[in-house]
């Protein structure tokens, strides 16, 4: 092996260590956050201890001394809590949280190449105070012993239960079904495989064998009773039986000591151990996961996208050749389509992450912000297991961080003000995620002062966003805070006034097709609800033709499709038209204008009534509707750059590219036309 390969391998192992650190830190954070709620919880302290311990173990193996030292100190203190010498209080939880943040920083420092990360001295002294307050603790061994301890375990496995090489007795009963033999399998193969795991005793139970005259040659009458003494786990044994499925009715139980005893049925043997450490690791194993490089899953999503495109190609060929949908081929293709859709949905869920990963980062933001603003805030997380596509999750972190900062800085009042208003001095910030009608909803709710419509209105006039006297309803006033250049707090604060306003929040949410709503009550608090799509890689859309070219419009923006009657369109200004819709009139945007073609208007037959999130409507005129389908979204920026009216594209059944219309762009056009008519007036 060349040196280079070796370094690569080491890098890979280091990367795995850092990945694991991230996981452990996330778990640590999760446990610590909930520890505050239920102070007496030995199980949680155990978990916390194990997290720190794992990090220490790995760190020692990689010679990351600072990390080893600090995690060892942290671990020693935790041990005092674990053994009951100290009991958990709110103060100690906050010390633990500080330590967790320090661990996070040290890990990050090592990850970025350096190792020079100093832990704040007061964090260390806080920790040490716990150690010194317990004088008779044997844990306080001399320095040498301490180091021995660390390096003694440096290469020892960190996961505790699974690896313990204890010999166990498993009793296994095999009842063989005729199907097992029909598949040409042989019990002998199984027995040989089992023997490979340890010592095997075999007994054949012939009780069910009938008299020779009654024997049915294709039936199977034998039952094997096996006793296996092995260091392997039940999972390893079960693996052997995986091949034969249900045809070999195998029951595996952890047997009692006595070998000669007939195996007594012990149904859930492995789970019945009482040592909490063991139990935890078994729990984890139940929801076993495989670590897969995300790029591989992305590749899968892409490949399935191509399958969908190919499927479209097959179907359009079938239509062209007039193959009937009821024909054998038609049925097979339809079945295939369903399979592909199912496959696609499954793979997309594989890429989904629980929103927990973002929420947990926010815990840190909340603590920092609360400290800086000298406010007391309790963070409540709900629905952290709600899963969101990775691509969305990545872009959700920044806007959420900003909104959480805002909620604490501007929403939640100082403890004194709260007390005067008769509220709990500790403010409540609730982050909630859930699914509703195919979209993910994330709510940020505070019980602070609420939005003040009058103040927002005045501020908007001052900032020349609106004109005095303009009549706006309450929701319209609230949405003013998303206007560029709006900020209700006069002085720039440390926390949220960093030149980034809510307009940026809204923009970044729009990039991921997110929508945001506000509800607020003065004195009671504010709730921001963000509605997000589950995935960005597939959209449902309508494919239409304009000036001979195919385009796609996302179906969730289309309110209605009506036949366009050009005689009803009326002139409302230079190149501007109106069109009747229900009991009112809409502004018209012609597709031909957007794509820059001059049209004789003869082909314009269809009107899409399009609505955006602000409930603005417009009439969009196209030539023809082709189909309604699901489209794989291709990002134009991957290989090119942003294009004005189309944010993305898709590939049609015939292999050609079709652009997906950016509905916000249409409303932008509307705005431009409105401005140009304002200029005309001037």
């Amino acid at each position: 092996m060349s040196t280079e390969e070796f370094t690569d391998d080491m890098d890979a192992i280091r990367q795995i260590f850092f990945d694991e650190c991230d996981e452990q830190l996330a778990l640590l954070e999760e446990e610590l956050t909930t520890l505050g709620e239920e102070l007496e919880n030995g199980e949680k302290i155990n978990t916390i201890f194990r997290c720190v311990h794992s990090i220490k173990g790995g760190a020692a193996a990689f010679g990351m001394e600072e990390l080893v030292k600090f995690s060892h100190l942290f671990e020693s203190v935790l041990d005092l809590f674990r053994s009951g010498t100290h009991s958990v209080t709110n103060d100690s939880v906050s010390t633990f949280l500080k330590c967790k943040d320090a661990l996070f920083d040290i890990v990050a420092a090592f990850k970025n190449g350096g190792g020079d990360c100093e832990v704040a001295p007061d964090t260390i002294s806080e920790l040490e105070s716990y150690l010194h307050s317990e004088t008779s603790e044997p844990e306080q061994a001399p320095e040498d012993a301490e180091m021995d301890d660390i390096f003694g375990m440096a290469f020892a496995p960190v996961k505790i239960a699974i690896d313990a090489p204890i010999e166990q007795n498993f009793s296994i009963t095999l009842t063989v079904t005729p199907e097992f033999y029909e598949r040409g399998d042989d019990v002998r193969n199984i027995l040989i495989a089992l023997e490979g795991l340890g010592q095997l005793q075999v007994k054949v139970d012939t009780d069910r064998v009938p008299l020779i005259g009654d024997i049915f040659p294709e039936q199977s009458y034998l039952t094997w009773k096996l006793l296996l003494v092995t260091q392997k786990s039940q999972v390893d044994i079960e693996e052997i039986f995986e091949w034969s499925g249900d045809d070999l009715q195998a029951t595996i139980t952890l047997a009692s000591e006595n070998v000669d005893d007939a195996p007594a049925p012990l149904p859930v043997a492995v789970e019945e151990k009482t040592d909490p450490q063991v139990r935890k690791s078994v729990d984890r194993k139940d929801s076993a996961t495989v670590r897969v490089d995300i790029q591989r899953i992305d590749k899968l999503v892409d490949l399935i996208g191509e399958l969908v495109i190919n499927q479209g190609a097959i179907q359009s060929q079938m239509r062209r050749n007039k193959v009937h949908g009821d024909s054998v081929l038609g049925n097979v293709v339809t079945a295939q389509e369903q399979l592909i859709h199912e496959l696609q949905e499954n793979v997309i869920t594989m890429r989904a992450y629980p929103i927990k990963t973002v929420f947990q980062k926010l815990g840190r933001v909340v603590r920092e912000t609360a400290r800086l603003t000298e406010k007391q805030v309790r963070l409540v997380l709900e629905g952290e297991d709600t899963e969101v596509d990775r691509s969305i999750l990545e872009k959700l972190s920044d806007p959420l961080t900003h909104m959480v900062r805002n909620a604490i800085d501007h929403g939640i009042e100082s403890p004194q003000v709260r007390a005067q208003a008769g509220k709990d001095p500790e403010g409540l910030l609730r982050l909630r995620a859930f699914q509703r009608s195919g979209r993910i909803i994330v709510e940020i709710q505070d019980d602070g002062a609420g939005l003040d419509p009058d103040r927002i209105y005045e501020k908007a006039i001052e900032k020349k966003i609106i004109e005095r006297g303009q009549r706006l309803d309450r929701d319209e006033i609230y949405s003013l805070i998303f206007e560029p250049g709006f900020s209700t707090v006069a002085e720039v604060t440390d926390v949220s006034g960093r030149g980034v306003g809510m307009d940026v929040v809204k923009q970044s949410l729009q990039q991921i097709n997110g929508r945001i709503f506000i509800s607020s009550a003065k004195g009671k608090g504010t709730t921001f609800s963000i509605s997000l799509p589950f995935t960005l890689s597939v959209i449902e859309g309508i494919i239409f033709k304009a000036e001979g070219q195919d385009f796609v419009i996302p179906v969730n923006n289309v309110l209605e499709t009506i036949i366009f009657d050009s005689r009803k369109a009326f002139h409302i200004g230079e190149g501007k038209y109106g069109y009747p819709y229900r009991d009112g009139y809409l502004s018209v945007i012609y597709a031909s204008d957007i794509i820059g073609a001059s049209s004789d208007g003869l082909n314009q037959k269809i009107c899409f009534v399009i609505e955006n999130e602000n409930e603005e409507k417009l009439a969009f005129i196209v030539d023809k509707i082709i189909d309604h389908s699901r489209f794989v979204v291709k990002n134009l920026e991957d290989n090119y750059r942003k294009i004005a009216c189309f944010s993305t594209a898709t590939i049609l059944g015939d292999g050609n590219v079709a652009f997906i219309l950016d509905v916000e762009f249409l409303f932008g056009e509307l705005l431009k036309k409105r401005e140009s008519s304002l200029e005309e007036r001037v």
Partner: protein
Amino acid sequence: MIMEKALVFSLGNQEFSVQISAVKEIKGWAKATPFPAAPAFVEGVVNVRGSVIPLVNMAQMMGVSDNNDEKKAIIFLKDDKKIIGFSVSNVTDISDIDEEDFRPLPELSSDNLKYYSNGILSLGGRLVFSVNVSSLFEGSLQ
């Protein structure tokens, strides 16, 4: 000393070359899907095995006269991030490039040519402009 291999192609009746390591794929020319407000030299976007890739008319972008406007091939070039297709008149051959083959551009070359080309290669009497791949990418993404 052989430095590298280069792909030689023509725009009209003039030959050009790019380093072979940047070439991802060569395909016959196909019509791209046009889009509004595109720079004149961008023909549109094409689908290459599921990726949407812009197609740039290289002659037009470089301001090189392209007498016979017939385009026969698309050269797909890659940098570390993106893939862009360039339509060219024809793909000629792959040549070994020697360091001694390089000559600087004449003083009076147009700014465009100076931007896109880093010198002239004389390959057995043939005059080939060596094209800078990074300039091609910068130019295309404007």
